[in-house]
C-alpha cells in the first residue's frame, strides 16, 4: 500500500538577504527521507533547533523546500497540490491557546476551516456541537472565547478545529507542551481514540520522549537538520543505535530516585545552523567520536529491517545487546 506521505531527499534552505550574503543560502534540513504509512503515528523527535517544526511546515508547503514529496502517491509540486494537502491535513499548534484568535468564539474558530476551504458545513451551530462532542467538550463551550478556556480545554478546541474537515493527516506540534501530566494523558488518549475512529495518520513533533514512546508507531530522530535514526518505536527504545538517540533517551530523568544518574549522557547544546560542524554534525558532542567522524559525512543507511541510522560507528557496535545493556546500566546510583 502506498504510504500516505512519502518524503524523498527533502531539503530546506533559507535564502540569506543582506548586502554581502546575497545569493547565499543557509541550509536547515537536508536528505530527509521518510514514510508515513496510513493509519500510523510517526514521532519526530530532537532538541529545539533540530528542524522538527521546519519539516512540518515544509510538508504543508508553508516553507519552500526541494526534493520529492508524495501525498497519497501524488507528487506535491504546484500551489494547487499544496492547497489539496492542506485541505486533507490539519495542524495542531504548539501553543493551542495562542493559535486561537482572541476575537473568535469557539464556534467560529472550529468552523472556520469550512469557510477557508469553501466546504459546505450546513448549520454552523450543529457542526460546532458535533465537533465539540467529538473532543469531549459540552456544546455550551461554543460561545466561549479563548481566554475563558483552561490549557487542556484550549487543546481540545485545537483538536476539534483540526478535525473539522475530516483530515487524513494530522500534524501535531508538541501537542501537550505545558500541560500537567494528567491533562496530557487526557489529550493523548483523545488523539488515540480519534485515530482509531477516523483512521487518522499522525505526525507528532515533540522533544518529550516519555510521551512519544506511548504514542508513536515509528520515530524519526533529527539532529541539526539531519535524520540520524528512524525505526519502530519499541525497537529504538529497546536498543537505540545512534549515539545521539542513546544520549537523548538517557537524558530523560526517570521518576524513580533509585535510578539517579551519576554521569551525564550528553554535554553542551545543539550548535546553531550558522556553526554547523563539518562531517558528522554530532561529533562535537558525541561520546564515541573518532577521527573519521570529523573527516567524512556519514550517510543514512539501513542497519536492520525497518531501521536506519546515520553514523560511521554503528558497524562496530551494531545493535549489540550487550553494549546497549551496558549503556543502560551505566548509571551508578547515588546515595
Amino acid at each position, binding site marked *: 500500500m502506498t504510504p500516505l506521505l512519502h518524503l524523498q531527499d527533502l531539503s530546506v534552505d533559507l535564502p540569506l538577504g543582506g548586502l554581502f550574503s546575497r545569493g547565499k543560502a543557509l541550509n536547515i534540513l537536508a536528505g530527509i527521507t521518510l514514510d508515513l504509512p496510513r493509519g500510523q503515528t510517526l514521532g519526530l523527535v530532537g532538541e529545539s533547533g533540530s528542524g522538527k517544526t521546519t519539516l512540518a511546515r515544509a510538508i504543508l508547503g508553508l516553507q519552500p523546500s526541494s526534493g520529492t514529496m508524495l501525498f497519497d502517491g501524488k507528487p506535491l509540486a504546484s500551489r494547487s497540490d499544496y492547497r489539496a494537502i492542506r485541505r486533507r491535513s490539519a495542524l495542531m499548534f504548539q501553543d493551542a491557546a495562542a493559535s486561537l484568535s482572541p476575537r473568535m468564539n469557539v464556534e467560529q474558530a472550529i468552523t472556520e476551516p469550512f469557510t477557508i476551504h469553501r466546504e459546505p458545513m450546513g448549520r454552523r451551530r450543529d457542526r460546532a456541537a458535533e465537533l465539540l462532542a467529538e473532543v469531549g467538550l459540552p456544546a455550551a463551550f461554543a460561545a466561549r472565547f479563548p481566554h475563558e478556556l483552561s490549557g487542556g480545554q484550549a487543546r481540545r478546541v485545537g483538536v476539534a478545529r483540526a478535525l473539522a474537515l475530516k483530515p487524513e493527516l494530522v500534524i501535531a506540534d508538541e501537542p501537550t507542551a505545558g500541560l500537567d501530566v494528567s491533562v496530557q494523558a487526557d489529550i493523548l488518549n483523545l488523539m488515540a481514540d480519534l485515530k482509531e475512529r477516523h483512521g487518522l495518520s499522525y505526525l507528532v513533533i515533540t522533544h518529550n520522549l516519555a510521551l512519544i514512546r506511548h504514542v508513536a508507531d515509528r520515530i524519526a530522530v533529527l539532529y541539526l537538520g539531519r535524520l540520524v535514526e528512524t525505526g519502530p518505536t519499541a525497537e529504538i527504545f529497546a536498543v537505540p543505535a545512534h549515539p545521539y538517540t542513546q544520549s537523548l533517551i538517557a537524558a*530523560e530523568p*526517570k*521518576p524513580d*530516585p533509585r535510578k539517579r544518574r551519576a554521569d551525564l549522557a550528553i554535554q553542551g547544546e545543539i550548535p546553531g545552523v550558522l556553526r554547523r560542524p563539518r562531517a558528522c554534525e554530532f561529533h562535537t558532542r558525541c561520546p564515541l567520536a573518532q577521527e573519521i567522524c570529523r573527516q567524512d559525512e556519514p550517510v543514512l543507511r539501513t542497519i536492520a529491517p525497518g531501521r536506519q541510522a546515520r553514523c560511521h560507528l554503528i558497524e562496530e557496535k551494531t545493535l549489540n545487546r550487550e553494549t546497549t545493556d551496558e549503556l543502560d546500566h551505566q548509571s551508578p546510583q547515588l546515595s
Partner: protein
Amino acid sequence: MSEAVLNVEDLALSYPGGVQALRGVSLQVRPGEVLGIAGESGCGKSTLASAMISLLSSGAEITGGAVYLRGENLMALSERDRRRLRGREIAMVFQDPLTAFNPVLRIGEQLVDFQVNAEGSSREKRRRAAAMLSKVGLEPDLALSRFPHELSGGMRQRAAIAAALLMRPAVLIADEPTTALDVTMEAQIIHLLRELQAEVGCAIVIVTHHLGVIAELCDRVAVMYAGEVVEVAPVDDLYHDPLHPYTRALLSCDPSALVEHTGHLPTIGGRLPDLADPPPGCAFAPRCPLASESCATPPPRVRPAPAREVLCHKVAP
C-alpha cells in the same frame, strides 16, 4: 534533626476574587537539604515559592500564618529589611531567566550590582562574579561581557543560578528551573544544581510539575493539591510507597513511569475544586477512588512515620 532554616507556618494566602491559593500550609526547609514541591498547575506551588522569599504578586494577601527565615518573621519585616535578606540569605531562580535579567545591562555589570551589600571593591566583586560563572560551567570572560539575549536558554539559566548563588545564600528557591529547556539541558542543569548544593551547602527548594526532576534531585518532597500540602515524605518513600491517593494518581499518570508501551494512559478524572469556594472536607475527595462519607469532613494530618505526613482520612496513623 536540625533546626529549620526556613519555616512556613500555617500560611494562608488569597488572590483578588477570593481565590484561596494557599490554605494552611506548614512546611520546614532544613539546612542543606533539597526539598521538592510537586503538584499540578493551580495547586499553589509557585505561590508558596514566592511567599517563601516574600515576593508576592500585587493583590496577593496573606490571610494567616507566617514565614520564618532563620527565626525572623518575613511577613513582619519592612520591605527594606526583606531586601537586605534577599540575595544574602535567600535567593530565587525563575523559569524564564530572560525576564530575571535586565535586558540592557551586560551579565557582568549585573552580577557586580547584585553584590551591592557585599564588602570589597568593584574589581573584587567582578572577580567573584567570574569565579561563580565558571563554577556554573560558563566561560567567565565571555559571559561577563554578554547581554542576556546573547546567551542560549541553557546558558542563561546557568547565569541566573550563578547570580542567585553569588552571595552564598542559605536557601535557594528554584521555580520550574528546567521547564523551558530541552531534556539534554535539563539533565545538565539538574547535575549542576546537585554539584553546587554540595559545594555551597545551601538548602534548595525546587518547584516543578516534572516528577522525574524531583526524583533526580530531591531529598524530600512535598506534594500540593488545591492550596494544601497533602503529603510530605523522603523522596524514596514518596516514589516507592506513596500514601496519599492524589500522590498515587499523579505518579501513575506520568508516561515515563510506564515501562510497557500503552495506547491508553491513566488519567485523574474530574477537575480541581474552585478555590474561591473550596469544599469544607477533603479537596481531593470528588476525584478520589477511596472517598467515603467521612471525606466530607476536613481530613486529619496523619504522621505514619517520623519523617512523613499525609492529609487524608484513609491513612492509618
